[in-house]
């Protein structure tokens, strides 16, 4: 059964509340971004090796819905600070509250989703706690010394680094959404909800950043980042007219169309299709890449694709080297043939 208790923020934690694994509850984009649930799931696996409890920590207002979700997805304790004054996401106050709470409870590990918010929030918390932080981890393990081994990419994913924080607590990491898989929702899961009261307002920092306006702008083109199939084209497609075929292919495969910078500059496709350092990161199950040379500013953003099929007339293009299947052909001709064949195989 899920139990609830309240405690003032000055209350000291019991020993079983120490050395746990904490996951920051980043609920702002909950329905589109389940990174908190993914982290809770991974934390449970890590906890099996350290014997810790998995706790979610959440700040805001009207949070019951999220709190229950966290429990249904594996959180054993949820620390909640629920107050009207915390209604809007604010880095400064959230940093203050997290640093304060973590300073007291001394979690062994603190995991934060690598959302834009998380990427600004986490380093500040780490600085307040004078501890180490690894960004954008793609892997988390517990080693024989019971330390968190954090795998993080460098050089646009061309290199991976294994990093530990041996002598400081908490060991902190941000993790990209989609790296781990959430546990299925289970209503029979139980947990403990601890409502921590907000510190006296005198003890809260004065916000130095004023939010003048904050509008939710769901990006239609967000689809590109989440698409299971991306059809990406470069200068090698030859012309705007020929490039249009890629939109057809994308439609046929229920995918999205992406483009390189020269394509966007030439207005063969809109800016929202730009894939790369100056545009979107993609991680489809299949990436079709047509007439793209494979400059690092582009490949850095496609490295996470599960399977890459590249078509280029130059077998030595960098894009062909990172592809799973490298097809030496005229991009435009191959695209037409592929569309024809797909239509046939999809018919009825």
């Amino acid at each position: 059964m899920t139990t609830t208790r309240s405690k003032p923020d000055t209350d000291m934690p019991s020993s079983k509340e120490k050395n746990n694994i904490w996951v920051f509850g980043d609920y702002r984009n909950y329905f589109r971004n389940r990174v908190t649930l993914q982290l809770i799931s991974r934390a449970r696996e890590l906890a099996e090796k350290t014997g810790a409890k998995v706790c979610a920590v959440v700040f805001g207002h009207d949070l019951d819905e999220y709190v229950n979700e966290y429990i249904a997805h594996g959180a054993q304790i949820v620390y909640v600070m629920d107050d009207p004054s915390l209604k809007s996401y604010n880095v400064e106050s959230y940093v203050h509250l997290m640093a304060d709470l973590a300073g007291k409870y001394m979690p062994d590990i603190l995991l934060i989703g690598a959302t834009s918010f998380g990427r600004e929030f986490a380093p500040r918390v780490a600085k307040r706690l004078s501890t180490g932080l690894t960004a954008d981890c793609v892997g988390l393990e517990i080693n024989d010394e019971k330390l968190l081994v954090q795998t993080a990419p460098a050089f646009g994913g061309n290199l991976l680094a294994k990093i530990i924080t041996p002598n400081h607590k908490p060991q902190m990491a941000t993790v990209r959404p989609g790296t781990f898989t959430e546990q299925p929702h289970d209503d029979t899961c139980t947990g403990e909800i601890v409502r921590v009261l907000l510190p006296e307002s005198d003890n809260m920092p004065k916000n130095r950043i004023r939010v003048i306006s904050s509008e939710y702008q769901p990006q239609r083109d967000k689809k590109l980042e989440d698409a299971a199939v991306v059809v990406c084209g470069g200068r090698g497609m030859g012309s705007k007219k020929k490039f249009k075929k890629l939109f057809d292919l994308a439609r046929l495969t229920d995918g999205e169309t992406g483009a390189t910078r020269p394509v966007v500059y030439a207005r063969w496709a809109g800016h929202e299709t730009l894939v790369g350092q100056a545009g979107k990161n993609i991680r489809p199950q299949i990436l079709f890449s047509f007439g793209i040379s494979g400059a690092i500013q582009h490949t850095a953003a496609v490295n996470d694709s599960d399977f890459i099929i590249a078509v280029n007339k130059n077998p030595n293009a960098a894009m062909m080297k990172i592809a799973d299947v490298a097809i030496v052909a005229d991009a435009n001709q191959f695209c037409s043939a592929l569309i024809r064949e797909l239509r046939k195989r999809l018919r009825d």
Partner: protein
Amino acid sequence: MLKLVVCIKQVPMVSELPWNSKTGTLRREMAEGMINPACKHALESALVLKQEHNCHITVITMGPPMAEEVLYEAIAMGADCGILLTDPRMAGADTLITSRTLAATIETRCPDFDLILCGCHTSDSETGQVGPQLAENMNIAGAAYIEHMELNGRTLRMKRVVDEFLETLEMDLPGLVTINTRTYIPRYVPLDGLQNAFEKQDIKLIDADELGIDPKTIGMKASPTRILDVYSPVEEKKNVVMKGAVKKMVDRLFDEYGDRISAAIGKDLKTHDHDEEQT
């Protein structure tokens, strides 16, 4: 006069990085250096402010002696002077320690700064942590991923898109921003600018002793994180190369990878259609 400080980092020029094709590893020691792309956007944003207001721009970098190059480049683009923090004892610092060292530098060398500008992440270690941690160290207002700035008196108005929220923010100076790479496209470095930068010689080299910082608090030894291992991801990738007639290759693609394609597009695909067709 508004005092701007831009923190920049020299990173290896990855697109031209020499790869060891046998082992798939990066030969970093052979790489050429360049200004980290995001830092260049930060510098550009400072230069735009300078066009509209009376500003003085100091660029600071921490790195090996060769990192002086990026300061010359920054001055050629329009910065006024540079500081190179260089000391073998500073090497290997993680973001916590880097931000602390930068903070000590700004506090002693540019104590009357108004705005600090940083790139939003680096292309080599890719953390994006130094900017926010620097703001914490200096105990000033800070905002990340800024795409647009407008200065009215001592108030800086900023725009950014974070997690699908379009935000307009304000802070009173002094403060810190990290600049996103979507706007403030960096200007080209004029060749004569580079010449002038070398002649101007407005670059100070500072080591830990001159900075007056305790050597125990800098570099790898002081850093809470430890790198155990750096490796290039072992790809089970086969890199199958196909050559020949287009139609044959399309068929082969479906024969060998049809399942994968079908799973990704979430639809069933007929198999061996081409055989039927031929008969």
